[in-house]
Each structure stands twice: as structure tokens, then as C-alpha cells.
């Protein structure tokens, strides 16, 4: 039994295949992350799953309902946190929640019953009469998250939930999202923050050019796709050293004026570098970001 299932999904805008043969399955209670560079098709995928955009081909089932045919019924039990806050600027904090609850046809009594807990969750208790333009970016994000919970959804879609937030605000959002998974809610989020994906998600899919190119837990993806050790090297003569490095490590990459050497046994690389004071280097374990860059390339996506 899955909460969300998409099969052979296609969506084309003009000559561009934005979503191209995508298969997706999300199990109940998991936090599922959709990773990809800008323009990979993440937001379009979310919109397709919500029934806001109709696919050119493929099937979607959201909470047991076929989408887009019965998207309205499915959305009754779904919450959405969009990439850009669209709180109602004419309303106070509490009015935003009240008005949003009405869109789900919730009784006024039920909404006011849920309000205190949601305000506490958003860290906005005591601020219910505050106007939206007096809130910080982090507060707005948390209110948007609380708004998405007004209908007590089984599944929460989040499009880049922490983009544009400072580290304090981001950590608070992460803490709240972990609380939601502990309560048994299913989370589907898109992000291009590897740290976010690694910390929050039980399972990830890396998406590029409209289709999934890898799926698995963060650890499994690292184990499967990349050598466990990395050395980053820069300084005078790094280009010459790159040739040397190719003999010492199975995979060597360059990005600008930095060389990345990947290996399971990194000792020969480190030994060589200790004799080269003109080069500075950083040795670290391989991360999800290395997997991401390996699979999607280092080219800029604008």
C-alpha cells in the first residue's frame, strides 16, 4: 500500500519534456525527498501529483484516488507548503488559518479547536493577531507549514521548505518536520540542499531532465554511487598535480580551480600531498552532494 504512486509520467511544455517517464512510489510514514538541480522538473512533478497540472501520459494515484480525475477528493487529505510563501497579507496570523480551514469545508468550531496547537507548532502562540508583514521569513514559513496542517493531512507536500531561511530558522523547520514524521505523517519534499535531504529524508530520489536517475536512502546512495573518501585540492600547480592524482585515485574531477580526488583507499593521495606544500587540501568523507554532482554533473543550471 503506497501513499503516492506515479507511473510513466510525461509532461511536455512546448518542445521540452519537463517530466519524462517518471516512476515514483512513496510509502506511508516516510519522508521522501526529491532532489534535483534547477529545472529538473521537481515542481512540475509535485503539481502533477496534486492534480494542478494534467499529465500528457501516465497514471497517478494519491491516497488511493486517481489523479487528476479525483484530485479534489485526494487534496482534502493533503497539505501543501509551496516554494514561495503565499500567505494572505490582508489577514492576521489566526485569520490566515481560519480562512484556509474554510477552503476545506471545516466547521468553524473545528478550526478554532485546532488553532492553539497549530500556533504552538508554528512558534507563533501569542502572535495570532499579528499582521503577516510584521513576521520574519522563518515565521512566515512556519505559518505556511501550520496552514498546510489545518486539515490534519495524511500527506504533506513541501517545495523547497527552507530555501531563503537563515540557519537558525532552517534548523527549527527541520525539527518541526521530524516531529511530523514521528506523528506518522508522510512527507514529500523537494530540495537542492543536500544537508536537508541527508538529515530529514528516509528515502531520496535524484531527478534530472525530467526523470529519476537514482533512488535509495541517503547512505545507500552514497555507498552505491561514490567512493567513500574525498580530497579537495587547490593552490599553485594544481593542474599539473591533477595528472599525478589520476594514477593515485580511481576518479579525479575538476571544478574551477579545485581538484576532487575520490577513492576507497585515499592514503596514497594524502601521502603524495604531504610532500607538496604549495597545494592546500581538505580530506573528508564523501557526502550526498558528491553523489549529486557525480550524477547530475557540475555544469551550471540557470
Amino acid at each position, binding site marked *: 500500500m503506497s501513499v503516492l504512486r506515479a507511473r510513466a509520467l510525461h509532461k511536455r511544455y512546448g518542445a521540452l519534456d519537463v517530466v519524462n517517464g517518471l516512476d515514483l512510489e512513496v510509502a506511508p510514514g516516510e519522508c521522501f525527498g526529491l532532489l534535483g538541480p534547477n529545472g529538473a522538473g521537481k515542481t512540475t512533478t509535485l503539481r502533477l501529483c496534486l492534480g494542478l497540472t494534467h499529465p500528457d501520459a501516465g497514471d497517478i494515484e494519491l491516497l488511493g484516488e486517481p489523479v487528476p480525475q479525483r484530485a*479534489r477528493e485526494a487534496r482534502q487529505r493533503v497539505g501543501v507548503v*509551496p516554494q514561495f510563501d*503565499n500567505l494572505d497579507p490582508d489577514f492576521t496570523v489566526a485569520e490566515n488559518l481560519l480562512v484556509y480551514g474554510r477552503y*476545506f469545508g471545516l466547521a468553524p468550531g473545528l478550526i478554532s479547536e485546532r488553532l492553539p496547537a497549530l500556533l504552538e507548532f508554528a512558534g507563533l502562540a501569542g502572535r495570532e493577531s499579528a499582521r503577516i508583514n510584521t513576521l520574519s521569513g522563518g515565521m512566515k514559513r512556519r505559518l505556511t507549514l501550520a496552514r498546510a496542517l489545518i486539515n490534519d493531512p495524511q500527506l504533506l507536500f513541501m517545495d523547497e521548505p527552507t530555501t531563503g531561511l537563515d540557519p537558525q530558522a532552517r534548523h527549527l523547520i527541520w525539527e518541526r518536520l521530524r516531529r511530523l514524521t514521528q506523528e506518522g505523517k508522510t512527507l514529500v519534499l523537494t530540495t537542492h540542499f543536500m544537508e536537508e535531504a541527508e538529515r530529514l529524508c528516509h528515502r531520496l530520489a535524484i531527478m534530472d531532465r525530467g526523470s529519476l536517475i537514482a533512488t535509495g536512502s541517503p547512505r545507500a546512495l552514497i555507498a552505491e554511487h561514490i567512493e567513500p573518501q574525498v580530497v579537495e585540492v587547490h593552490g599553485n600547480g594544481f593542474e599539473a598535480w591533477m595528472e599525478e592524482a589520476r594514477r593515485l585515485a580511481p576518479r579525479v574531477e575538476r571544478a574551477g580551480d579545485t581538484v576532487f580526488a575520490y577513492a576507497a583507499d585515499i592514503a596514497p593521495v594524502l601521502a603524495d600531498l604531504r610532500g607538496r606544500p604549495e597545494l592546500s587540501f581538505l580530506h573528508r568523507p564523501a557526502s550526498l552532494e558528491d553523489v549529486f554532482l557525480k550524477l547530475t554533473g557540475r555544469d551550471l543550471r540557470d
Partner: protein
Amino acid sequence: MRWTAVWRRNFLVWRKLFIASVLSNLADPLILLFGLGYGLGALLPSVQGMSYIAFFAAGTLCSATMFTASFEAMFSGFSRMHGQKTWDAILYAPLTIDDVVGGEIMWAASKAWLSGTTILAVAAAFGLAHSAIVVLVLPVAFLVGLAFAAVGLIMTVLAKNWDFFSFYMTLIMTPMTMISGVFFPAEQLPASVLAVARLLPLYHGVELVRPLVAGRLPGGIVLHVAVLLGYAAAGTALAIMFARRRFSA
């Protein structure tokens, strides 16, 4: 009936900004009504058997209803759709774009109805209405509001930016106000211009409201009501069609 949640959202904002909102919708038409009505009216013995101010009150009622509906549907609607992304937020809930468009049209028509009704009340208070039959203006004002709200919302869902509305206002609404019998009887226009006016909703609104203010039943009620209903129905259908296209992209 899911559109009612959208209507209630707009109503709540309106209630919070009540004074500014009412003032901006009513100050202009009322100043125009009394300024032109008494000023110009002093020069005119009577128009179609009415005092000029009574004649003009019926016209003002219709044009104010038209302007309120159009402004709400276009400028406020575009701000909610494009600037604030309020529609996007609503669409995550179990509402569809059809519900949103329906709610917006009904809201703009309601607000327009309030403008028309207030002008009617002021006109009645100044002794310009002569018979209880004048209450029939109330449904007519709503119908005029509905027709212009629907057409205005077509403009909104087609608009790329704010400038788009000035074309509609300058090229369509202003000339329409001039030829639809708001300021002077449309019958004195050249036949070809009158023929154009008869295709437009404002003319039919004025043709209904003016006799009612004067205390008699209008002639050709069925035709006038049918044209207004036609604009409302076709306008709503087109607005929904274009909105679906815009929001599924």
C-alpha cells in the same frame, strides 16, 4: 457551493477595510451625481419627462455598478491572482480554478450590487424615486454587476500585467459609458452608434433602471434581462475556460 469560501475570504478583507473600500466606490459617483445633476440639471428643463438629476441618477447607478464590478474583478482580482498568489494557495485545497473564478465573479457582483444599492438609497433619500416599484432595481443592479464582473474576470485571467486593463477601460468601458444613455438619452445618438450600444450590457442596464426609478415598468424587460444574463453566463464560461488554461500551465 465551494465558491462561497472564496467569496467569504474576500468579504472578510472587505469588512476589515470597510471605510476605505466604501469611500472609494461611492465618493466618485455621488460627487458626479450631485455636481453634474444639480449643476447641469439647472440648465435643463427636463429629460424624458424627468428632472435631469433623476435621469442622471439612474445612469450613475448603472455606471457605478459597472465600475465597481470591473475594478474589483480586474484590479483586485489580478492582485489576488498574480501579486499575492492567493489563488495558488486556494488551489492546494480541495477547490478548483472553476470554484475560484466563480467565487471571484460572485464577490465582484456583490460589491457592485452594494454600490448600486447605496446610490439608489441616496437617490431615494433625495426624493428622486417615486414608487415602490423602484425596489426592482435591486436585482437589476446585481445582474449588471454579474455581467461586468464576468467580463472583467476574462480580462484578469488573460492579463499579463496591469497595463492590460487600461486598454479595456479606455477603449471599451469609457466609450460604452458615453453611448449607453448614462449622461444623455442614447436615442439621440446616430443610428449606427445606437446599434452598437444595444449590443452592450450597460445600455440594457440603464434601460431597465431608469423607468424603475421614474416609477414605471420598463419596456422590453425580457430582452434587457436576457442580454445581461447572456453576458454574465458567457463571460463566466469564458473566464473559466481561460483561467483553466492559465492555471494548468
